[in-house]
């Protein structure tokens, strides 16, 4: 058979071509080039499936395809480095490929309904953006080294800028786009330093293989190898931790973790399908994916792991609390995204590699679903997003309602929807590993606390939107949506229900059914993969060992699951009591002062704005200094010489007898000088 891996570049390039086509010829194509995009993503999707199948067939692929800057050469000090592009296909990237291409495809289709049918202008630009966005993300997914990953990581950022700012004629979107790029850029600064540091330290940035930097780091740490360089006097462990944290900076930025999460809610200014793409499969997912990609490096440094876990747990809770008080549909979803990625970080920090990837997968589906659902609601509501103007849409938009409900149940983590399984596993991993690690345990507790909050705001959203009486005319008579909206919703809805089945770890543990933890086996290279990139390997070199509550493993599983499910139901119930009524009212007042804090997102935006202004003040000061002092000196020199000249010329009085006098004096002076030096007249 033909080798599927030969076509991996095509997966990336197809959307790229659609970008070119839409940009160049979109004006002349029907639907502004939408079909090109759909075809391209569909093609990529099929190819990805094929690739995944090949991996399942027991193969993997790690190949350098193109040397960016020339091979070899005495690169930096002692090290030889190569800057190259390549493709790394292992279970993880194969899975991610499928997810990304699928979501991208559905988003493209949905856009037909959301953009074209709504008569948006500038569609070619839109589809070009989508194409490039998808292409960059896919390039990032298949990257075989950190440099390439960084490059596409940045391109993803660019596309988010372009798409968030799609409605550039309005004031809001451009500023949101700027904020998104700037904040993530701030994170990427550390990432870039990290990349350079990796090159300096190991001389390579390959993810996989014996010469990859995780492998080298591992070898160096257990003394069987050494690294090319560490900065003056720093011991290896510390330095690797530093490098890990540097790279993490990029992750925190892109995956909207605390404190760099502020850009994401603003990013809602972008068209809803773009939000779906950003949140479910591309930009925000990139951060978490990066950690998973170089997990073999992170597990080597416990500090980093703990930090990741704690940041994740904190973000999960922190973002969830803010989601409670938002009035706009997409705002709620935005904070839920932040919170959910917090869970994934928690999982990664807690050594739950598989759990994280699992949640990444399920989240991709149900979050895409929720956003597209929100999109269809927004269509119906004529682009009014305020939930207090909605209500009672259940009967009028049945398809949207039920799919949205499925997604919400998944998000809230209600048995047996997809979200339940993944979130439960995360909490389980955090728990069992956290019992010996306070920081981690803290993360776990925060994650646990976030569960009811999540369920609460999710269903607050559902009830306010779909239940009760319509609270506005548009809600009474919403605009119907077409097949291109319902289609994607249905697909994702069913996925949101069933995806949990790919990883029935708790069931396996409790009932002892072997082999239904497909994802575990998949990521453990059971079918195919690359040495050193397996969950087992990570577990082996990882810092954690498991501890259990009463009843050993099974008991822990059951307790954990029960607790989290219970809490989720608690939150759901509360939401039901408060908002599932014919005409619900705001209860946020009960929160008192806390409410304002939550409304204003803990004033973090204000903080960042304040910082920005201080920076500008400094800049202004620098400018004054530059113009006044430095340039002043430069001009001063000339004016000084001119005044000097002015003095000198005054000698020339114009009166000839004075000339005679001066001339005589000059001569006499000369006489004296020479006479004195020569010692005449003695």
């Amino acid at each position, binding site marked *: 058979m033909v080798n599927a891996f030969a076509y991996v570049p095509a997966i990336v390039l197809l959307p790229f071509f659609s970008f070119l086509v839409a940009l160049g010829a979109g004006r002349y194509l029907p639907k502004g080039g939408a079909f090109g995009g759909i075809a391209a993503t569909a093609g990529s999707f099929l190819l990805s499936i094929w690739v995944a199948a090949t991996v399942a067939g027991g193969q993997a692929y790690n190949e350098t395809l193109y040397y960016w800057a020339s091979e070899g050469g005495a690169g*930096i000090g002692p090290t030889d480095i190569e*800057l190259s592009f390549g493709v790394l296909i292992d279970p993880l990237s194969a899975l991610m490929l499928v997810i990304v291409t699928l979501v991208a495809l559905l988003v493209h289709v949905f856009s037909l309904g959301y953009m074209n049918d709504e008569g948006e202008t500038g569609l070619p630009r839109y589809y070009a953006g989508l194409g490039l966005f998808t292409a960059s993300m896919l390039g990032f997914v298949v990257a075989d080294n950190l440099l390439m990953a960084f490059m596409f990581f940045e391109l993803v950022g660019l596309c988010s800028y372009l798409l968030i700012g799609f409605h*550039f*004629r309005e004031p809001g979107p451009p500023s949101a786009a700027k904020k998104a790029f700037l904040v993530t*850029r701030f994170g990427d600064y550390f990432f870039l330093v990290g990349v350079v540091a990796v090159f300096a330290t190991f001389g390579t940035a390959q993810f996989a293989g014996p010469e990859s930097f995780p492998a080298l780091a591992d070898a160096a740490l257990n003394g069987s190898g050494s690294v090319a360089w560490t900065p003056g006097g720093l011991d290896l462990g510390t330095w690797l931790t530093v490098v890990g944290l540097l790279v993490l900076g990029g992750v925190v930025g892109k995956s909207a973790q605390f404190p760099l999460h502020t850009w994401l809610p603003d990013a809602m200014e972008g068209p809803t399908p773009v939000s779906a793409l950003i949140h479910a499969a591309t930009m925000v997912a990139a951060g978490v994916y990066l950690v998973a990609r170089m997990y073999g490096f992170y597990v080597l440094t416990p500090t980093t792991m703990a930090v990741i876990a704690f940041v994740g747990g904190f973000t999960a809770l922190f973002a969830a609390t803010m989601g409670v008080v938002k009035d706009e549909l997409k705002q709620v979803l935005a904070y839920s995204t932040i919170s959910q990625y917090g869970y994934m970080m928690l999982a990664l920090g807690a050594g739950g590699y598989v759990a994280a990837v699992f949640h990444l997968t399920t989240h991709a589906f149900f979050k895409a679903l929720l956003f597209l659902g929100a999109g269809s609601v927004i269509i119906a509501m004529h682009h009014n997003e305020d939930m207090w103007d909605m209500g009672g849409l259940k009967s009028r938009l049945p398809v949207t309602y039920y799919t949205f409900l499925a997604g919400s149940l998944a998000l809230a983590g209600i048995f047996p929807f997809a979200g339940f399984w993944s979130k439960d596993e995360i909490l389980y991993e955090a728990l069992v590993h956290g019992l010996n690690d306070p920081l981690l345990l803290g993360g776990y507790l925060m994650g646990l606390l976030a569960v009811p909050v999540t369920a609460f705001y999710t269903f607050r959203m559902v009830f306010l939107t779909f239940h009760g009486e319509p609270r506005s005319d548009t809600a009474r008579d919403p605009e119907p949506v077409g097949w291109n909206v319902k289609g994607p919703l249905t697909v994702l809805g069913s996925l949101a229900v069933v995806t949990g089945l790919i990883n029935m770890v708790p069931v396996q543990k409790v009932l002892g059914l072997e082999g239904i933890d497909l994802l575990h086996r998949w990521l453990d290279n059971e079918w195919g993969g690359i040495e050193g990139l397996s969950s087992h390997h990570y577990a082996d070199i990882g810092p954690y060992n498991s501890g259990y509550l009463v009843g050993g493993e099974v008991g822990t599983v059951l307790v954990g699951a029960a607790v989290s499910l219970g809490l989720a139901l608690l939150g759901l119930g509360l939401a039901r009591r408060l908002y599932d009524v014919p005409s619900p009212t705001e209860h946020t007042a009960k929160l008192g002062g806390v409410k304002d804090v939550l409304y204003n997102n803990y004033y973090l935006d204000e903080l960042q704005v304040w910082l920005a202004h201080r920076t500008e003040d400094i800049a*202004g000061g620098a400018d004054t200094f530059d113009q006044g002092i430095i340039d002043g000196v*430069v001009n001063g020199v000339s004016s000084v010489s001119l005044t000097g000249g002015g003095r000198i010329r005054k000698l020339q009085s114009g009166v000839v007898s004075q000339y005679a006098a001066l001339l005589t004096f000059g001569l006499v002076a000369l006489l004296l000088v020479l006479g004195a030096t020569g010692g005449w007249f003695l």
Partner: protein
Amino acid sequence: MILEALMAAAFVGALTVFLAPDEWAGRLAFAISLIPFAGSLSLWSGFEAGGNALLGGEIAYATRIEWLEVGGRSVSWFVGLDGISLPLFVLTTFLVPLAILSAWTPVDTRQSQFYGLMLFMEANLLGVFAALDFFLWFVFWEAVLVPMYFLIGIWGGPRRKYAAIKFFVYTNAASLLMFIGFMSLVFALGDSVSSFALPEIAQAIAAGDLSAWFGIPPDRIAMVAFLAMFLGFAVKVPIVPFHTWLPDAHVQAPTPASVLLAGVLLKMGTYALLRFNFTMLPEQASILAVPIAAVAVVSVIYGAMLALAQKDLKRIVAYSSVSSMGYVILGLIVFTEYGIGGATFQMVAHGLISGLMFMAVGVIYNATHTRMVGDMAGMADRMPVTVGILVAGAFGYMGLPLMAGFAGEFFIFVGSLSAPALPYAPAFTALAMFGIVIVAGYLLSAMQSTLFGPFELETDYDVGPAAFHDVAPLAVLLAAIIVLGVAPDIFFEMIRDAALPVVEGVTVDG
């Protein structure tokens, strides 16, 4: 003799255009300027020389003809290229035709003189990069200033005269300082060199032929010469705090002049720094490594902060050039193959990108007649293509991967972080790298307030898209930037080849 042919083409072209009528001077100049470009492409494709021209590497397309005797040393017409000068040579021939195109719209008076001066400047610029004899080089180096003086002074903005004279006198004073510095080296070499050929001088110094002069010990002379030349070039680059002529010159200069000023003239400074200070006196350089690196980092951050404070688009780009040049200095001082190679590559990359930025701002200015951030908004609504390219260029400036700027900066960073020759290299590098955040800050803010949002601009005419011959050069530049970003090896390979001997010049203890 092909180098001579190309320079002659530009020179004769200049004379022809001077005499041509204004109506078609622009077209004629453009057509003529394509000749050196085509030629330089063939030079590039046929380039096989390896090593550094100054340090005994083979010199491509070399010619050497004795000219006259100065104090027992021969001055000769000695030109040739190596991996460092060729890319800059190509950059020049590439930028000039585009700059000429970009002049068609704005320049409406004395066209023939304008284009004549452009070509005359090109001839001298090519000379600067090709010359391998100090006197010849210096003649070209100074001759470049004259046309630029006129370009700014005649076709410039309101305060053009002030800017022109400031530029002229300031840079000339600097050249004088540099001249003195270099001459003291030559004197200190005494009879061990029989000519002003740079390779001979460089190798003589490398061979330790410096001897005491006026009772000053050789190492002292070398140090003084290094400082004099460094200061001299620092003005040209420019390095903070010798940069204040640049914003004035840029803001007042007409667009095409700005393009060449930022694109090529600034590179003369860094190129000279590399050729003279860092190639000839590596030991002094490594002694002064820390202060120089500090200056570089200050240039990066301080320049970026200044750009952040500006309201005039051109000033913004001008100050960000100061910032970018700081990266180049950092790359040079670390004395690693990637550092110096990256610095040289960054010269080319920044040449293209800043050229693109100035050109695009110029195109917008043609339509709006203002460059003030406050005066306009939502230009994207009226000039979609131009703005699109401008945005792309801006991201290139921010170091977006797969564009030339990122390649240059990344090479520099990779080369500098672990540089053995520079103490505290990691700290310096990390500090300098923070520039990529600030640059994003001010460029994005400027774009947001001028290009996006609802369209605002008080004019008594309606603003429409730019003409084809305005946009075409932008597109070409953007394409070049992307190509270089995707395949930096187009130049980087030969650059590294020529940079390696320089690196080997400095011995790192420990």
